[in-house]
């Protein structure tokens, strides 16, 4: 630790800190444009100038280390000033230069009200300009469907270039020409090809890059801000949902070091327009092959008459990917009281079961733990599309110091270098038997990490593959004191919560596949849109969008989307997180737990709670770990790995295939979104071009 005096306050900071970090440690605010905590230091905006005692000129505090400061003549700690007259004058000079070419179009700029330049001009700007020359004019660039450009406003901080290159791992953006003529662009103005590209608009300190789908839709001060969690993948990114009136206007990332740092995927962000269209806003009942609007009582009546005439053995329930813990719990209780054992939350047929302990189906290493790993094996997953922010963590770890990374599965661009070992289970079997050279690398590693994706598990031989992976984990010592290197990567936000609740077939119960194939006469479908239900069964679909599930349904109960209810979700790590209501569900749609509660009454099996709080009280009493929000209840990983390894079995020979075929269209909300459709079409076009 090194002592440094900031504005007369002595602080003790690590020597590798920059002056800017030291100033923040001392409570001093330093303005900045180009500096960003998670990107490399560029030092080109000069806004963070501070005065260092003994230095002839102000220095850029973002690029000057504490260890680079000289002590005073008698060994006093170095001294810096962030508030002196010199500093103020220097920053005012910088601001004046920045404003020479910056247009005065704040009234029509979408960044207005959330603009770093606007804010900092309040402190360091002057109200007139000394420049009579024309301002620089820069043509706007096309960067794809998500980012709108207004390049006259660009101040060349290069945050966007650094983000795409360093974090997103695609070298799409660059700064061409030089000096005053410098322009940010992609090569030949191609659309950016990253699933994280919209983050550049968040990073832009001015209005040069803004969100295209939201252009001119709102002003930031009109919005109500609600902290929530994202459900489009199983990462459970922290988000802030901004709404105006009944409408969700935008979704922004929230800082959460343990999960998403401060990025979210484009799908998590721009799914917003999908929340407005294709919504189920009233109950429907199928009559003579056609769905017609109905009242709640009618719909419940139809269900009750159907359920009462059916044996419990012929009733089943399937839970989809976006369902929250509360409604899954309510559905489970309802099915229990009806005596139904045919319940399943694994519509993709994943071979995961709570029988082997919680640690057998969660991402045990935790997402932040990836940064500690020193060898990674990915089995049957394409983390870039299945869990982009997990991929970002792996890339971050790889950039810090390259480590051996290997993949068994589809050969894809993961934005970091990896060894492609093979395509299917036979390679995994070779590894598990210790016959592959990569095993040595895993064994040599102190903290090897094995990530098993749904591509390896959602198949008939999934359990044998899971067992093989567990055997490998055991043989390479992936689970040891202080390190849990056996991780399951999920793709569905509801999955871990449902498995925690034990929403899997009971004694003699059918699984989702068997139910869908006609094993049941009445199927209760809680938002499962990725499963094809064979003709014959009477399907009750409770969900939010008129998607595949609703098309097959005989009764539709309109539910609330994740932005419209207070709901618990458990991410792939097993982290319990709470989503909050930012807007109300449209029309007659209700919160899902309340629908089930009302239905239970009609079915004569009244659920024992009348409010969400009562439901939660019962839930927490039965499953205490759901009460510990934002925490991961770590299971006994060693025991789980032993149990899985003991299953054995011989896997087939089919190659692993990622369950995510189209990143932009994985759930009903995304399939309703026009923006996602555009992104998907563009990505498909790019893939076709690349294949040529």
């Amino acid at each position: 630790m090194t002592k440094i005096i900031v504005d007369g306050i002595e602080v003790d900071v690590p020597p590798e800190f920059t002056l800017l970090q030291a100033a923040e440690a001392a409570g001093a605010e330093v303005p900045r444009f180009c500096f960003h905590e998670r990107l490399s230091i560029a030092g080109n905006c000069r806004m963070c100038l501070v005065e260092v005692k003994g230095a002839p000129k102000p220095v850029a505090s973002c690029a000057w280390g504490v260890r680079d400061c000289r002590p005073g003549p008698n060994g006093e700690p170095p001294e810096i000033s962030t508030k002196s007259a010199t500093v103020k004058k220097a920053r005012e000079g910088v601001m004046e230069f920045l404003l020479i070419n910056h247009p005065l179009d704040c009234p029509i700029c979408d960044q207005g009200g959330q603009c770093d330049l606007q804010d900092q001009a309040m402190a360091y700007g002057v109200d007139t300009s000394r420049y009579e020359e024309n301002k620089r004019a820069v043509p706007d660039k096309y960067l794809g469907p998500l980012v709108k450009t207004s390049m006259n406003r660009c101040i060349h901080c290069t945050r966007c270039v650094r983000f795409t290159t360093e974090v997103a791992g695609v070298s799409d953006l660059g700064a061409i020409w030089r000096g005053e003529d410098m322009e940010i662009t992609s090569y030949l103005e191609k659309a950016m090809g990253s699933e994280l590209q919209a983050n550049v608009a968040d990073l832009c300190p001015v209005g040069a890059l803004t969100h295209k789908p939201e252009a001119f839709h709102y002003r930031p001060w009109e919005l109500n801000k609600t902290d929530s969690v994202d459900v489009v993948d199983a990462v459970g990114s922290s988000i802030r949902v901004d709404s105006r009136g009944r409408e969700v206007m935008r979704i922004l990332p929230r800082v959460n070091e343990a999960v998403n740092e401060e990025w979210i995927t484009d799908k998590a962000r721009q799914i917003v327009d999908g929340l407005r269209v294709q919504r189920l806003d009233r109950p429907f009942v199928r009559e003579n092959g056609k769905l017609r609007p109905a009242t709640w009582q009618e719909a419940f009546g139809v269900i009750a008459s159907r359920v009462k005439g059916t044996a419990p053995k012929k009733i089943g329930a399937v839970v989809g990917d976006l369902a929250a813990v509360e409604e899954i719990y309510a559905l489970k209780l309802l099915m229990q009281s009806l005596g139904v054992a045919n319940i399943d939350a694994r519509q993709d047929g994943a071979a995961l079961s709570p029988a082997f302990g919680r640690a057998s189906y969660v991402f045990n290493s935790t997402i932040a733990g990836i940064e500690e790993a020193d060898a990674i094996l990915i089995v049957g997953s394409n983390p870039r599309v299945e869990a982009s922010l997990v991929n970002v963590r792996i890339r971050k770890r790889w950039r810090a110091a390259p480590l051996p990374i290997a993949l068994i599965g589809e050969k894809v661009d993961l934005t970091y270098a990896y060894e492609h070992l093979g395509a299917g289970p036979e390679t995994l079997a070779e590894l598990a038997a210790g016959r592959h050279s990569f095993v040595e690398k895993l064994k040599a590693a102190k903290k090897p990490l094995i990530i098993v994706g749904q591509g390896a598990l959602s198949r008939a031989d999934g359990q044998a593959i899971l067992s093989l992976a567990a055997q490998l984990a055991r043989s390479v010592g992936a689970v040891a004191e202080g390190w849990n290197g056996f991780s399951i990567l999920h793709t569905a936000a509801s999955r871990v919560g449902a498995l925690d609740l034990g929403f899997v077939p009971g004694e003699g119960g059918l699984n989702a596949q068997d139910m869908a194939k006609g094993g049941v006469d009445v199927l209760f479908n809680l938002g499962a849109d990725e499963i094809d239900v064979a003709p014959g069964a009477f399907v009750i679909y409770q969900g939010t969008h008129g998607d595949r599930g609703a098309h097959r349904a005989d009764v539709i109960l309109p539910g609330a989307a994740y932005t419209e209810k207070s709901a618990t979700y458990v991410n792939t790590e097993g982290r319990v997180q709470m989503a909050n209501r930012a807007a109300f569900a449209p029309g007659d749609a209700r919160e899902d737990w309340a629908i089930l509660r009302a239905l239970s009454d009609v079915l004569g099996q009244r659920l024992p709670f009348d409010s969400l709080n009562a439901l939660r009280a019962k839930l927490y009493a039965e499953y205490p770990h759901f009460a510990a929000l934002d925490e991961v209840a770590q299971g006994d990983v060693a025991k789980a790995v032993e149990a899985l390894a003991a299953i054995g079995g011989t896997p087939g020979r089919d190659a692993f295939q990622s369950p995510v075929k189209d990143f932009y269209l994985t759930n009903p909300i995304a399939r309703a979104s026009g923006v996602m459709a555009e992104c998907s079409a563009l990505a498909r076009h790019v893939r076709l071009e690349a294949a040529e």
Partner: protein
Amino acid sequence: MAVRKVAPEELQPKSFAFTPETEAFAQAQIAKYPPGRQASAVIPLLWRVQEQHDGWLPQKAIEVVAARLDMPPIRVMEVATFYTMFNLAPVGKYFIQFCGTTPCQLRGAGDIKKVLEARVGEQGHVSDDGIFSWLEVECLGACCNAPMVQINDDYYEDLTTENFEKLLDDLAAGRPVKKGPQNGRHASEPQDAIKTLQDPSLYDGSVIGSWRKRFEEEAVKAADADTEKKS
């Protein structure tokens, strides 16, 4: 600084490939850097490719260089656009870089510019016969011979409208031209009233090595003195 533009699509060739000589050059350049650092060779490669491709870099060439060095194309584009000596649009067979900085201005660069405008046309425009194009650049460091231009790889200095017109005529006609000063000077020596460097012995070769000889003699003397002292 002159604003350069990327050539419009219709001027861009459909494809580009290294000649065997360029490829050999590329290999030699890349070999200079440790494995994985091949991107360091980007400037020499671009320069060589520009020479191969009539003095300018088409998009396809930038992509070929990027692929050869395993770099994203935008990174090569950044380099090619940053350095003003890379031309991104076609240039004439004789590419004239005209110095417009203060010393040349004071010595009449304005007249030279008028000649260029009259004869070749606007900046960045290639004459109809494809022989000439010109660009105003910043100081080329030959102020003692101002005004001057650089045509392809050579400097042509001490220009006047007359001798510059003649120079362009000769180039266009394919006649041999004299590089360097066009007013009879050898280099940057004073043009008239010469007061120094007039000793004929300077030019007959008799003084070559005289300094070295002096030091060698002194060294011998010192060595002799040393041995005397010791004995």
